């Protein structure tokens, strides 16, 4: 088992050889913290709540909208847009006043 693990780690180190494989030293602490949190959550379930976004009966009309190209960015090192919240449905952003007052 440990032999297999070592083999996998060597293969991974070969792939990311850039910094001489020193990042491998973070494997131990990262593994310890990761396991602790995984087990803690499995027992305590502190990350659970009602998933009302997908567990509520919603009947939606087709989504409308528009998309306008406004700029181009070159040579950025982030693999995704900064502040990406497309899947963080519960993160509230600036609230605009209602467009109609029939509520």
């Amino acid at each position, binding site marked *: 088992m*440990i032999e297999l*693990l*070592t083999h996998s*780690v*060597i293969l991974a*180190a070969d792939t990311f050889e*850039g910094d001489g*494989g020193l990042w*491998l*030293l973070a494997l*131990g*602490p990262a*593994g*310890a913290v990761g*396991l*602790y949190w995984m087990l803690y959550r*499995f*027992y*305590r*379930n*502190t990350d*659970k*709540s*009602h998933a*009302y*976004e*997908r*567990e*509520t*009966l919603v*009947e*939606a009309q087709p*989504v*409308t*909208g528009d*998309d306008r*190209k*406004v*700029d*181009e*960015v070159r*040579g950025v*090192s982030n*693999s*995704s*847009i*900064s*502040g*990406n919240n*497309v*899947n963080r*449905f*519960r993160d509230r*952003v*600036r*609230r*605009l*006043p*209602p467009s109609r007052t029939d*509520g």
Partner: protein
Amino acid sequence: MTNPPPIQPPPYQPPAGSPVPDGAGPGSPQEVPPTPGEHPIDPATLPEAIQDELLAPDPPVLDTSSPELQDGLNRCPNCGSTDVELRPATGMLVCLFCRTEWSSERVEEAYGLGGDLSELRGTVVASGAQDIDTGADTLITMKCGACGAEVVINTENQVGARCHWCRHTLTLAEQVPNGAVPDAVLPFRITKQDAIGRIRQFVDKRRLFALKRFKEEFTPENVVGVYLPYMVVDGNVGAEVFGVGEIETRRYTRGSDENKKTYYDADVYQVRRQVDFTVDDLTIESSAERANLDTKVNTNNIINTILPFDTKNAVKWNASYLTGYTSEKRDQDVAALQPTLEHQLLSIARAEVAGSVRRYDRGVRWEQERLDVHGTRWVAMHLPVWLYSYYEVRGGRGLVHYIAVNARTGETMGSVPVQQWKLLVAALTVGTVLEAVAIAALVVLS
């Protein structure tokens, strides 16, 4: 002979030195009140905006009271006995004398809660969900409909009592404005034995690192059946979101072999999305204590997780469904729950539009959002939960761990206290092994 002119009474002079007392006079509560809907000025002569406000109908109220139960006696339709309780296996009420079974009407049909939600306008609040009168007494005195004796019910923790004279069971049917009586109740379906089995199964999967004392004291037979208060909300809304999205156009690496780095080029778009939708039976905690989901001080998120319930099967309020179970009172009004509702509606809107921005492979940063609530309908309900609790004291602070079973769907969730040192030892052991492997790999590579 001419007739003398008719004698005219002298004009009325108010007695000198008796001014109109403060607070009296025209328009004061001391005058005879105007009839409802009467205005001193004809509204038709006023500007349209004022006219609309004056002539607007009163806020709609869904009357869910049960006049047939107002005498407090929920009688068996066959023999007239008031010894009635819920039979979870069938979800029906059963008479303990003649074993007749019957059920209250489903609120969905009784109050027309189905129908097209896109027609919903304004805020419709059912009579059991009206604002709580903070001055309303929790002790309700009921007159026994059978013998006339007066029986006191403490609505903090019960909605029924037995008449100490004639032994009839009295149940609270009147919607007193203290939050104790909702519009509807969803009866227990999962039996206690079934709940015990589910809780045992849940804990059995989490024994290795569980707190030793918790394991020793674990007695799922102590599970309690409790009706918790919720607001069940239908909504007709529109939402609009604005943000920035990026599409990757090129990916490349720069630098030497030792210091390679990946860079990206992307097109930036201004994105707007709009969606109209209706939500059916969104369920919100209407007890402030239960709605507090701070996992540092409580485990209420466990009870929140077992939502949703099959609220379509809720029946008209009848306190006999609560016999043998405990219940909690609602303490939140519609206005207090509005921010929670709006937060959930906006979250749903964001989830709905997510599929339409998939082409932005570098993601979207939503920056502004707008919610137009066209209509909402609020119904107060008691929903059934089997609750097992364990009180843990650590570092001088107490924490109640819940294991909860949805008494309709059987969904089970819980918080099992952990033995911290065991968990740390396990994590450190695995970390040490991984570190040893990493060092071995570095040695091989060098």
